[in-house]
């Protein structure tokens, strides 16, 4: 049985986590775990807060600790599923989600996460069904509505997606995920200005979030082909795990060097030299492009004030 103090800290950390104050939640949970290092739910909650703060490796360790301490707790399985989803280990994530879905305390968060995982696994009908279950619990659940809008967007049903995202934003005008989806819908409809409004909103909330940056970069790519090239490369490379990214970088290096060696072997010295310069240019470009993007982003966000509507 938790002491009143621990219950208060846990409750405060939950509130902080739900409003996106990841670091506040982490510090609150640190207090709980300093008092009771074997508190399974605190470890699971810590995993979710660390995940929000993009410390996914520490999140994985915390989720594992939570599960080791209480392998029957649905919330511990929910945290494990969320972490594994971030690692793109979708089959394992789904196994944990199944346990969380079938546990007694399954709430809307569990169904929305399960739907998001199934959507990534390509099980769209099942994802829709899970979102339906979340909406049965709360018809105005903005998380479920935003996820449903993403599902419709993926299917190319822009009107349905816009309707769902409108409902999500009516339920919670500051819902980040709904704004992100709304931005993508606007971009698909060619309304770059509207997309930019949504992107600005989420970037002001969290300028380092990868999904927010992906939306912003896509908007920028509509206006500059050079940044478009970088964005497509970066999106392709960064959606993978750390190991996947390293493999891509090394693979690019090996392919470039092999091309140079083969060019030299057939006596095409000028081609070898051109390839060598091209490779160096590519290295320099990929090195500075993210820095340039971040600086541009900071400058743009400082320059323009948001409309009251956002």
């Amino acid at each position, binding site marked *: 049985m938790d002491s009143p103090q621990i219950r208060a800290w846990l409750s405060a950390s939950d509130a902080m986590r739900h409003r996106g104050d990841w670091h506040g939640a*982490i510090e609150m949970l*640190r207090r709980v*775990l*300093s*008092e009771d*290092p074997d508190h399974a739910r605190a470890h699971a909650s*810590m995993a979710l807060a*660390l995940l929000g703060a*993009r*410390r996914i*490796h*520490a999140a994985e*360790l*915390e989720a594992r600790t939570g599960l080791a301490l209480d392998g029957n707790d649905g919330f511990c399985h929910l945290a494990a599923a969320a972490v594994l989803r971030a690692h793109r280990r979708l089959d394992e994530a789904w196994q944990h989600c199944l346990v969380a879905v079938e546990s007694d305390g399954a709430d809307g968060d569990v169904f929305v996460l399960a739907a998001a995982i199934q959507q990534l696994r390509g099980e769209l009908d099942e994802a829709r069904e899970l979102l339906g279950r979340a909406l049965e619990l709360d018809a105005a659940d903005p998380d479920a509505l935003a996820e449903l809008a993403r599902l419709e967007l993926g299917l190319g049903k822009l009107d349905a997606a816009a309707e769902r995202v409108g409902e999500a934003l009516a339920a919670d005008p500051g819902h980040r995920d709904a704004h992100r989806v709304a931005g993508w819908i606007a971009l698909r409809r060619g309304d770059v200005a509207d997309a930019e409004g949504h992107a600005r909103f989420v970037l002001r909330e969290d300028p380092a979030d990868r999904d927010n940056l992906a939306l912003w970069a896509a908007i920028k790519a509509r206006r500059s082909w050079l940044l478009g090239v970088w964005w497509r490369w970066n999106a392709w490379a960064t959606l993978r795990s*750390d*190991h996947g*990214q*390293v493999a891509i*970088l*090394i693979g690019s*290096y*090996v392919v470039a*060097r*092999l091309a140079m*060696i*083969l060019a*030299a*072997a057939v006596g095409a010295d000028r081609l070898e030299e051109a390839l060598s310069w091209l490779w*160096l240019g590519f290295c320099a470009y990929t090195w500075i492009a993210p820095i340039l993007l971040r600086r541009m982003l900071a400058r743009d966000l400082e320059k323009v004030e948001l409309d009251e509507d956002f």
Partner: protein
Amino acid sequence: MKDYAIPDEPRPGRLGHLVVRPSAPLLALMLCGAWVAWPWYIFNAIALGSPTRRREIALSVGAVAGTAVLGVVVIALVDAGVIESTTAIRLALLAIATWKIGMAYAISTLQARTFHVYEYYGGRVRNPNLVLIGGFILRGAVIGLFDSTLWRIIVAGYLAKGGL
């Protein structure tokens, strides 16, 4: 009551003011050579107080040992006449360069996890330019320190012609 330590949190010691971004040793591998990169990774792991420092040090030592083993094999194959043509030698050297870059990226990725937390909590980050410029200037002298192909293979970087 002792504060709970989250698994990725650094514990910087007296050398904490000398921490650099993990991309700095990676850049050193390209510009200066492996003789700067591997010791710098080890130093940075210790200065940062990285919870994965033992793994980072083991990977750095393994990178040197692996390069030496690959170098010995390539030299033996060249001496035995198995590898003769310039293209074959360049391909063999490419394998060694790929090993180096792979290990460097692996250590950078591992160290970056702790570094980001260190930086978030306001840890001081040193500008690496002085070491990079010094290493670049001294590169030729260090690589030419011994008249040995194996030495050159071990201490060189991978941006120079031939991949090493």
